[in-house]
């Protein structure tokens, strides 16, 4: 108890004490990192089940997110896809159509235009629907030429106004404003986003509970050890440390399993999805988590595992008092 160092060496010994304490701290962290991993490996089945429960909880919101992403509902490009379609009168020929396009292009509210001639329109229609045979029988092309107009502003009011201006131009039969489906899509995207978020929060809580319960049992099974080390001067941080690492390991394992499940699901579904897409003459492949996405998923699961352990140990440490 008279462990105060002589004063003339005080500063130096304080410094070495601090650095040696830091080293001791790092050493214990390393030891607990390995020790907690070792404890997981020694009971592989039970721990694998815990990780699987975490993985399943993570896969559901992740899969929904990916689906939304693949449907481009989350894209900022949505705004750009706000277009007007100007249908020209049937009797307008290609030269006239070109002139009309130039006039449309001259409008200040118009950012870009694309002319689709009657023949091109027909080809596109056939390709999109795969209805070659049905249309071959038609003698005349029933489709008019059209101009796709990208406005400078996607605001509904501005587009409404632009559509009126364009509708009054000569040679123009009709202007279609695709506002309704854009709005619908936007609501759908918002719905999906909120659903994914709610699911993520809900299942994140689920992960906390799964890890928390597992750690609670671990604390209970090591109760005697905790009592003994507290009797001989262990701090709460020292006691907590191995359990926090266990929780983080559960998170890492659960995250990796979730990534595996997502890849597996992707393989499982990719064949019928691409076959279906091909039958419509389109090519579509299921989205996969990229490196950034995988990193985010793993970090989230690790953090959740750690947090679950923290909550569980914190709650139980206060109830454990050395006898």
């Amino acid at each position: 108890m008279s462990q105060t160092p002589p004063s003339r060496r005080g500063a130096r010994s304080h410094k070495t004490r601090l650095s040696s304490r830091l080293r001791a701290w790092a050493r214990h962290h390393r030891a607990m990192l390995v020790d907690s991993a070792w404890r997981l490996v020694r009971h592989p089945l039970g721990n694998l089940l815990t990780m699987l429960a975490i993985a399943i909880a993570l896969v559901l919101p992740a899969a929904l997110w990916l689906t939304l992403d693949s449907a481009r509902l989350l894209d900022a490009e949505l705004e750009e896809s706000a277009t007007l379609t100007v249908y020209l009168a049937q009797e307008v020929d290609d030269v006239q159509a070109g002139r009309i396009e130039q006039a449309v292009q001259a409008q200040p509210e118009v950012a870009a235009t694309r002319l689709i001639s009657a023949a091109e329109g027909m080809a596109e229609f056939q390709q999109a629907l795969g209805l070659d045979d049905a249309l071959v029988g038609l003698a005349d092309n029933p489709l008019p030429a059209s101009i796709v107009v990208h406005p400078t502003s996607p605001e509904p009011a501005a587009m409404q106004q632009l559509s009126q201006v364009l509708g009054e131009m000569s040679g123009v039969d009709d202007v279609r404003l695709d506002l309704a489906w854009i709005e619908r899509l936007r609501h759908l995207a918002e719905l999906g986003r909120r659903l994914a978020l709610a699911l993520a929060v809900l299942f994140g809580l689920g992960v906390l509970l799964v890890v928390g319960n597992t750690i609670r049992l671990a604390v209970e099974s090591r109760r005697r050890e905790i009592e003994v080390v507290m009797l001989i001067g262990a701090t709460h941080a020292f006691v907590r440390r191995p359990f926090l690492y266990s929780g983080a390991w559960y998170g890492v394992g659960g995250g990796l399993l979730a990534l595996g499940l997502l890849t597996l699901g992707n393989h499982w579904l990719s064949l019928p999805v691409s076959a279906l897409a091909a039958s419509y003459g389109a090519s579509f492949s299921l989205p996969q988590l990229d490196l950034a996405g995988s990193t985010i998923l793993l970090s989230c699961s690790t953090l959740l595992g750690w947090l679950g352990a923290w909550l569980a140990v914190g709650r139980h440490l206060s109830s454990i008092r050395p006898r």
Partner: protein
Amino acid sequence: MIAFEHVGKRYGGRFEALANIDFGVARGEMVFLTGHSGAGKSSLLRLIMRLERPSRGRVVVAGHDIARLHASQVPFYRRQIGVVFQDHQLLFDRSVFHNVALPLVIQGVEPRESARRVRAALDKVGLLHREKALPIELSGGEQQRIGIARAVVNKPALLLADEPTGNLDPQLSADIMALFEDFNRIGTTVMIASHDLALIARLHHRTLRLRDGRLVADERAP
């Protein structure tokens, strides 16, 4: 080293475990604490270990008023005290070596230094050859000596023992007491709670006698 000033301890508001305990133990002293079971020996040791706080009065150990220690300071306070328990409190899932090393691991002692000190402590209690054994493979007397090695491995200034010879035969008990005397000889303050009156009488140390939570005698060594 230890000062009790009019200390009282009540449990649950009614049961009075200790009443008006007043004594001091100087640095380097060796003291026995006796009394029938339930007289308050364990309560008194628990106060020194800061497992309890006094209901009345003041307990000062090594300059710390234990009632004023903040919860975060308690672990560091306990590291200054070596404690030998009647039931050893050894961990059965690890070797003798790792049991004895536990206080050093908690304090973050560098592994090589730690191994050296663990072996020195095991050598002192005569069990260096059993360092790789598990506690379950040892006899009761050997387990108690491991408990002592763990209590002294970080060279505490104060060594407490609660019935350290409780379940041992007279010869083993005498050996254990001789060990405590050795530690006392090199300057460690030692306090041993025991009801083995015959053994205590032979050892000629100061003896505090408790009865029903009161200090009824303080017999100085002759």
